[in-house]
């Protein structure tokens, strides 16, 4: 990992600020955007505690009034705005926050994340239709089942790294979907219909109106944000950062890497299952096709686009990925083309994501950090194993 090349990197931090006129247009835009965000970050880091809380409260306030038609008329002229806010926006944000623990914190590339979403959704659908279980206790069961399945998937596979792990998780996502298609007990390809809505809460009825569901998912999102921040700043979070940046080195520091990777998987799965239960509670009907591979890919795109490992970035990424295609529904099928173009442009101009954490950017510059290179770690690992086998052949 950058071993043999001896570059005088010590001074790059000082001379990083190059003349903004140098370079082609893309490089210039990229630099000015990243400079502007640096300034913002520094402001934020220097802000007093009450100022930050003010911003948090304003953001929560904004989220609470978000479903109002005034905002909706601009944000979503083509679709019912409150429905959009629940699904896909709310669901995507919650899923992205969960995947962020796996990808952004621990640096594990998970391409089958939708499986946990499906497990949560099917838990509610099955137990509520077959045994009449109520929503809230089933939420706990669904979350637990998803976490357990995260451990079951992780235990044999987390010895793999990078691309190999990605392929196995991709397989897991498909296995769960195909199992659902082929299991008549849970409706097979027809899925499960007549999933009951949650019971009344504080006098609020949960029926077809998306608003109460939006507030459920909003409170869960806030809960998961607090949980993520606490985790990231704990001993666990430091261990994850070490694993993400250099797994072997982490083990040499005394970090039980395998156990912490498993924990990251289970935590991510837990949040995915949570999203699944809430989703199923709203939609009445689920089928295996609600959980395609492309959803895993979309959520991963949201995390990477927003800035993996950084919660505001991940939320922004998930919001944009969910919202943009709906906002431009007027462009009919071209919208997907534009959506793709926007994604490509963002990744070209800002490869570290829209709002990356400072640490993440340092990792990317170095070219390490598991997901930071999107499987590039494997390139390196196989390169070193080539060296080893070449060594052994001598």
């Amino acid at each position, binding site marked *: 990992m950058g*071993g043999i090349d001896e570059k005088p*990197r010590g001074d790059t931090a000082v001379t990083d600020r190059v003349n903004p006129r140098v370079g082609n247009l893309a490089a210039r835009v990229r630099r000015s955007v990243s400079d502007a965000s640096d300034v913002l970050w520094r402001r934020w880091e220097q802000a007093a505690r009450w100022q930050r809380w003010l911003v948090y409260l304003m953001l929560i306030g904004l989220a609470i009034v978000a479903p109002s038609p005034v905002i909706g008329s601009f944000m979503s002229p083509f679709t019912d705005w409150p429905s959009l806010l629940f699904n896909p926006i709310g669901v995507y944000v919650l899923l992205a926050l969960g995947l962020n623990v796996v990808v952004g914190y621990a640096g594990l590339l998970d391409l089958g994340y939708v499986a946990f979403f499906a497990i949560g959704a099917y838990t509610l659908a099955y137990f509520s239709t077959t045994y009449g279980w109520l929503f809230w206790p089933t939420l706990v069961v669904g979350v637990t089942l998803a976490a357990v399945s995260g451990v079951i998937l992780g235990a044999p596979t987390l010895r793999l790294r990078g691309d190999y792990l990605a392929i196995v998780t991709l397989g897991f996502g498909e296995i769960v979907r195909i199992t659902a298609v082929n299991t008549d007990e849970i409706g097979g390809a027809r899925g499960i219909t007549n999933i009951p809505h949650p019971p009344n809460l504080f006098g609020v009825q949960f029926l077809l109106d998306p608003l109460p569901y939006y507030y459920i998912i909003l409170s869960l999102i806030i809960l998961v944000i607090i949980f993520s921040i606490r985790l990231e700043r704990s*001993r666990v979070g430091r261990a994850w950062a070490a694993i993400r*940046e*250099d797994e072997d*080195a982490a083990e*040499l520091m005394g970090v039980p890497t395998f156990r912490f990777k498993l924990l990251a998987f289970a935590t991510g799965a837990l949040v995915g299952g949570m999203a699944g239960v809430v989703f199923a509670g709203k939609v009445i009907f689920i089928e295996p096709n609600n959980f395609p591979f492309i959803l895993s890919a979309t959520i991963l795109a949201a995390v990477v686009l927003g800035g993996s490992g950084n919660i505001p970035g991940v939320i922004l990424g998930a919001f944009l990925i969910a919202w943009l295609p709906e906002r431009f529904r007027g462009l009919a099928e071209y919208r997907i083309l534009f959506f793709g173009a926007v994604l490509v442009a963002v990744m070209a101009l800002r490869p570290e994501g829209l709002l990356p954490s400072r*640490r993440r950017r340092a990792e990317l510059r170095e070219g390490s950090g598991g997901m930071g290179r999107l499987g590039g770690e494997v390139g390196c690992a196989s390169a070193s194993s080539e060296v080893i086998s070449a060594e052994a052949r001598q």
Partner: protein
Amino acid sequence: MLLEVNEIEVYYGKIAALKGISLTVDEGEIVALIGANGAGKTTTLKAISGLRPLSAGRIWFDGRDISRMPGHLRVVAGIGQAPEGRGIFPGMTVQENLLMGGYARRGKKDAELTEVYELFPRLAERKAQAGGTMSGGEQQMLAIGRALMARPKVLLLDEPSMGLAPILVAQIFSIISEINRRGTTVLLVEQNAAQALRLAHRAYVLETGRVVKSAPAAELLTDPRVQAAYLGGDLNTGSALTNSKPAHPGGLA
């Protein structure tokens, strides 16, 4: 006997990287493993620190059989390693990297931090700099300092001279001997055989996964066969030193 490696074998797939390596390290020693590329030096260290599983053989450390112990527990037992390629956490600052080094031990690490900063004043100047933006020499210092944070009984160093300018190599080596003087046993892997042999008390010469020679370091320095193969005596038979790194006689404080 602090560390005893007994007939260990390590495989990468079907390829044997170590074909029965045995070595011992006594408390307070500096022991060097020298050899060409592919001799199995790094693999030996990885096997000792637990990054590579053994196919056969045993490793004893401090009176305990650690052959099946997971790597993170070997750190607690007292084995510290500065890995191949330094293994710095690029996104963490120097200080955070050092604190990661003490991860296995809970509680305050101020004493260890002070000691590392005293050994490496350069790191103290750069506490808040991201590890990934440091020069190779600084990263090597950080890797060694980080390993020291766990207060290891034995320090495993994998090619501390790799990719460094001669003056930095000399500096790093003098710090290694200082660390040893303060009571830490050192097991050192080096391609830079001349430097390593001047520093070490004893050395093992590895070739294709086997120990072919072991002797006091001073003896190996004058051994004609070792000179020919590893000290640049005869370029036709030489392997390690012919490719890029000339030996740097002198320079060691």
